[in-house]
């Protein structure tokens, strides 16, 4: 992953306060919502086994000195460190101090050495390539007591050592209360395959760290708005390959797909498919009743029901983590805003009150947080990613000075988001934590890369 600038927290806070001041000036009297600095919330304190986890992740050790094992080892170290850092929960002993330690004996680490450089948790990795197979051993120790917290041996094909490191990172994350994201993937839409004639947009999936982009659709048409099914086996998306926009469901690892999942007839069109958290239902937008409305159906397309009934434009639904409610975009009050209704279409009420253009809701899937991300026009000339807290109605702006950013999607554990930004001429994916810190571009290849969906 490329890292762009990491502004100091103070300057970000200053920028946000300035932005907030401008906004108050523009908006006049604010209602219950208020724009607040994202950095007012305390940094999360994480504790493992009574200690603040300060990790030492020394280089992976090979069993045999062959080139393939060494290479696999080097990849595993790099990816594992990257994955653990990304989670944003742990401190790390600086690499420079690691090199001051005598060579690691993986069977019997000298814990006093590690204690001496301030490590509280030691992660020891060993790798061996034999033929087409790779075996990796990971042990995680409390340095103070020497006790083992985790001991795993991973075996599989040697052609992709990154997967081993991602697995290890997720397993280490089981020591916390959070599910790791190292094995997650992001689906998105790219025009890299277009030529002047086709102007195609095709769907891709990529590892959360930007590696291994793989093309999913090959139909030389417009394919947009991909969403993962909660089981990670399918993508629902909108394709124009049959003429007009319809929802398709593709079981992407089996090569099977279902056309027109929402059963549009005549020339009605469907957009914005969204699976309920249990994968059993699908919300979507359709114009079959005249104007664009939010509908729901079973995930197989059966039992369809219209949820919104206004002549206004109602679209872009997103589910609450309990599936009891659906947020969506509506311009029934004059401008596009985020509204909420229950999953029967009742109790419709407006959520966003700041800004004149809000769209593209994404409800944080973690039950630990109660907030919705969306695309907001907070400053003139573009969009930014905003998050509204459902209890306090406070809005925090996550992006600033990255050009125009839109289309947020939450990681499954609700601690990070992916979205798309255009600074200059090209749209690229970017990732930030839910406080808007550690924002990084996710380089996934050429072309304009948009409409990301963070999957399992």
């Amino acid at each position: 992953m490329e890292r762009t600038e990491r502004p100091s927290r103070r300057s970000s806070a200053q920028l946000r306060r300035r932005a907030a001041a401008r906004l108050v000036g523009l908006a006049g009297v604010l209602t219950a919502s208020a724009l607040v600095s994202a950095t007012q919330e305390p940094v999360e304190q994480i504790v493992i086994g009574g200690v603040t986890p300060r990790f030492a992740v020394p280089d992976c050790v090979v069993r045999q000195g062959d080139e393939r094992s060494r290479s696999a080892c080097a990849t595993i170290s790099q990816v594992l460190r990257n994955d653990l850092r990304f989670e944003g929960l742990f401190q790390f002993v600086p690499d420079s101090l690691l090199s001051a330690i005598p060579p690691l004996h993986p069977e019997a680490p000298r814990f006093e050495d590690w204690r001496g450089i301030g490590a509280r948790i030691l992660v020891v990795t060993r790798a061996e390539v034999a033929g087409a197979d790779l075996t990796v051993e990971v042990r995680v120790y409390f340095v103070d007591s020497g006790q083992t917290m985790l001991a795993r041996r991973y075996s599989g094909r040697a052609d992709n050592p990154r997967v081993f490191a991602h697995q290890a990172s997720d397993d280490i994350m089981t020591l916390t209360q959070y599910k790791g994201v190292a094995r997650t993937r992001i689906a998105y839409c790219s025009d890299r395959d277009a030529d002047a004639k086709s102007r195609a947009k095709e769907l891709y999936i990529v590892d959360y760290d930007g590696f291994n982009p793989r093309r999913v659709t090959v139909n030389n048409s417009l394919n947009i708005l991909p969403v993962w099914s909660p089981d990670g086996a399918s993508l629902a998306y909108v394709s124009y390959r049959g003429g007009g926009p319809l929802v398709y469901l593709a079981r992407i690892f089996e090569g099977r797909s279902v056309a027109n999942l929402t059963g549009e007839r005549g020339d009605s069109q469907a957009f914005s498919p969204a699976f309920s958290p249990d994968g059993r239902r699908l919300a979507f937008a359709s114009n079959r009743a005249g104007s664009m409305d939010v509908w729901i159906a079973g995930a197989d397309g059966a039992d369809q029901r219209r949820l919104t009934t206004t002549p206004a434009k109602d679209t872009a639904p997103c589910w609450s983590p309990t599936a009891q409610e659906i947020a969506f975009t509506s311009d029934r009050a004059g401008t596009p805003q985020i509204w909420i209704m229950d999953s029967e279409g009742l109790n419709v009420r407006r959520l966003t009150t700041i800004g004149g253009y809000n769209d593209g809701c994404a409800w944080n899937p973690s039950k630990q947080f109660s907030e919705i991300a969306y695309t907001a026009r907070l400053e003139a000339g573009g969009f930014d990613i905003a998050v509204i807290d459902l209890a306090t109605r406070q809005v925090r702006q996550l992006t600033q000075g990255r050009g125009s950013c839109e289309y947020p999607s939450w990681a499954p554990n609700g601690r990070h988001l992916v979205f798309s930004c255009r600074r200059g001429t090209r749209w690229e994916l970017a990732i930030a934590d839910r406080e808007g810190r550690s924002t990084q571009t996710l380089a996934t290849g050429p072309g304009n890369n948009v409409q990301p969906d963070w999957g399992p």
Partner: protein
Amino acid sequence: MLSLRFRRRLLLILAGALAAGCGGARRPPVLSAPPGPATPIEDKAVPSTTLEEGPDLRAVEGEGAAGLDLPTGDLEGGPLANIHFDYDSAALTDEARSTLEKHALWLQSHREATVTVEGHCDERGTVEYNLALGEQRSRAARDYLVTLGVAASRLRTVSYGKERPLDPASTEEAWARNRRAHFAVSR
């Protein structure tokens, strides 16, 4: 030197105390007790996931596009001129109405022709709301043609939102060109 058992109990107490002590909305996640010293190593097979490129292509080969030309090749040529819209609006301007009246006449004298009315937006809105606005624009144009006597069965609508701009530039001129309804004729 503290015994192992005492140390473990101490860790548990500390862990509990830390958990109880943080009274804020967020309780720090705590592992209650580390596993014992002789932890056996657990074996785990790492699955390999392969994605064959182009599963969708295989899936749709053999399905013909249902008689309708994909409006991708013809980049806005054709006998019926585009109409344009004001920013963030689906209202028909006087000029648009005048153009649509000409289209209605043309369709009267070309009775075999059917038309896909495409609704498009400029890049300055968001993806999803623009798809809805494009739908509204195409429907406005289609509905007006119907009031002018064109049979509804000859007209279909498709929204492209901002996904298919005519002009990729970021200028007022390009944006004005992109806020359009296009009429793709099939005969």
